[in-house]
């Protein structure tokens, strides 16, 4: 009989079998990760990844110019400002989101290395991607979803994703709220001996790099320029990490990478009470704040999504702003797309005003929509759990209590997250982690991992205490 502690104590052994990766070869102590070696450990080159994805209909999605949104944004921008806005229509992937890119290399690798199926713990579009790729490769798929509160109520968007996973032939296990989702994952991996298609393996992150590469290629082909800014929705940081790596692979080192999360700052993600009081199940601060300030909290020993290395800027938007952007995209551009993927679009409608008219801003994704995912399905559900829905400014929104729907484009706003403070929080924890003075290798790692090349190894301690009162 598996009890919580007995399964958790075998965590490392179970994950080693279920990923085929021995993370000990990339680590030295609790802090250091040889990130270059970790990312290279997949054994697949960039061209091979592209080939594998194209052979299964993944990637090569249309890049669409949002001419009408650009025109509307320019009316609000100072003369000479208002970038061209492009969006990568990732809803055109086989299961309807960019997540197919993340699942594709895992599925291929699992089959090639003799696993009979793949498992993922996710309430998001990733479940459908794993189920779809598993079907294509003739593998089994098990998706474990945190889905219900103790009253048995489930967010309509999560229920839709369960439907889609089952439609694609997966077994879906839906749990109540709690961090024991990881325990369930370990238990299922242990019982089946299947592959852990975690969102945070190097296979998953490498699969996203093609999106960054295509963004550069498509933008240059359409506009003759490289993107000045790429705006990515940020949950656990996989998309920002993979896209930024892809931009660099394609020679766009100077493109500004902006992470965007929905602001759910007042809600506790593991609380049964708070669980259904959010209208976004991903791309929100409940993931992005903990994952940026300490990435190694994922369902693999070390996280391959390390977005502080790549983020130039990090902003948050309100739930109401994303609903506004979703409706505007439908009416002004004729594109009815899912809600969470429009998190970055909501920020783009504000950030494009800061860029010159000649500049190009790329929104990294769209996602499929439908029953359970539409704004009004979300808002109707929010009302049933006691969240008030009003018309108002983004600043009127109170996560878990009030959703404020804007009524004009100039009301949209985004809030800057103090990235220096996030980097500082990570550095402080990193300095403390080994319980002794850091080695030279650990110091160099921390500089790279926190995105602190300007500070350098010699300046770490000074940076860690900067801004602390007294």
């Amino acid at each position: 009989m598996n009890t919580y502690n007995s399964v958790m104590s075998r965590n490392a052994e179970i994950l080693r079998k279920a990923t085929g990766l021995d993370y000990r070869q990339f680590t030295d102590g609790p802090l250091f990760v040889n990130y270059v070696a970790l990312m290279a450990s997949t054994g697949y080159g960039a061209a091979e990844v592209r080939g594998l994805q194209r052979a299964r209909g993944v990637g090569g999605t249309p890049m669409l110019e949002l001419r009408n949104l650009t025109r509307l944004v320019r009316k609000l921008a100072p003369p000479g400002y208002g970038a061209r806005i492009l969006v990568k229509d990732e809803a055109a992937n086989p299961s309807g989101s960019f997540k197919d890119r993340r699942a594709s290399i895992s599925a291929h690798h699992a089959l090639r290395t003799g696993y009979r199926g793949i498992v993922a713990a996710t309430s998001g579009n990733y479940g459908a991607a794993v189920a779809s790729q598993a079907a294509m490769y003739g593998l089994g798929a098990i998706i474990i979803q945190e889905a219900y509160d103790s009253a048995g109520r489930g967010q309509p968007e999560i229920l839709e994703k369960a439907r889609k996973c089952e439609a694609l032939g997966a077994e879906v296990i839906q749990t109540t709220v709690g961090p024991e989702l990881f325990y369930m994952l370990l238990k299922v991996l242990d019982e089946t001996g299947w592959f852990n298609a975690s969102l945070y393996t190097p296979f998953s992150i490498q699969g996203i790099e093609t999106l960054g590469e295509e963004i550069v290629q498509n933008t240059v082909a359409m506009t003759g320029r490289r993107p000045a800014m790429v705006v990515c929705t940020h949950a656990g940081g996989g998309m920002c990490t993979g896209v930024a790596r892809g931009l660099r692979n394609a020679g766009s080192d100077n493109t500004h990478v902006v992470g965007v999360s929905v602001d759910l700052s007042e809600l506790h993600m593991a609380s049964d009470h708070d669980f259904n009081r959010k209208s976004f199940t991903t791309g929100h601060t409940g993931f992005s704040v903990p994952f940026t300030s300490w990435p190694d909290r994922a369902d693999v020993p070390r996280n391959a999504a390390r977005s502080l290395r790549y983020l130039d800027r990090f902003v948050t938007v309100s739930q109401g702003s994303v609903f506004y952007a979703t409706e505007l995209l439908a009416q002004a551009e004729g594109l009815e797309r899912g809600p969470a993927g429009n998190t970055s679009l909501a920020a783009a409608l504000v950030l494009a005003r800061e860029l010159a008219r000649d500049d190009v801003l790329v929104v990294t994704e769209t996602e499929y929509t439908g029953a359970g995912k539409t704004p009004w399905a979300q808002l109707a559900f929010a009302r049933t759990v006691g969240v008030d829905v009003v018309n108002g400014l983004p600043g009127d929104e109170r996560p878990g209590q009030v959703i404020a729907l804007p009524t004009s484009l100039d009301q949209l706003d985004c809030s800057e997250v103090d990235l220096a403070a996030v980097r500082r929080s990570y550095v402080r924890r990193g300095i403390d982690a080994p319980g002794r003075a850091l080695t030279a290798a650990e110091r160099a790692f921390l500089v790279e991992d926190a995105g602190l090349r300007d500070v350098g190894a010699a300046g770490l301690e000074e940076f860690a205490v900067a801004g602390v009162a007294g």
Partner: protein
Amino acid sequence: MSTVNKSSDQTWVEVEWTVLEPGGRAASSPPDTQALPYRARARGMATDPEIGHDAEVVTMIGRRLRGCVRDIHPGYEHSFGRPSPEWVRMKNAIRDLVQGTELGE
């Protein structure tokens, strides 16, 4: 994995079971969550299922799971929802913005 009997007396059901009792949950859970059992649901085929009784189900991938039957022929009840007045107000404001601007080429 054992071979599934796909005979016609098999019924698609949803079962639910307790994974962890309140005392045995993760220490990192907040208090409101720790006070509750950790429960799970899954769907599969069962023989002669009865609501409220235990049953073994065979899932889509052929795995066998046990739980209490909570639904027979479970469906998907989530919907597009009814638009709220606030959403309609937002929608109409966007319609006015789009119609009041020279768009297209």
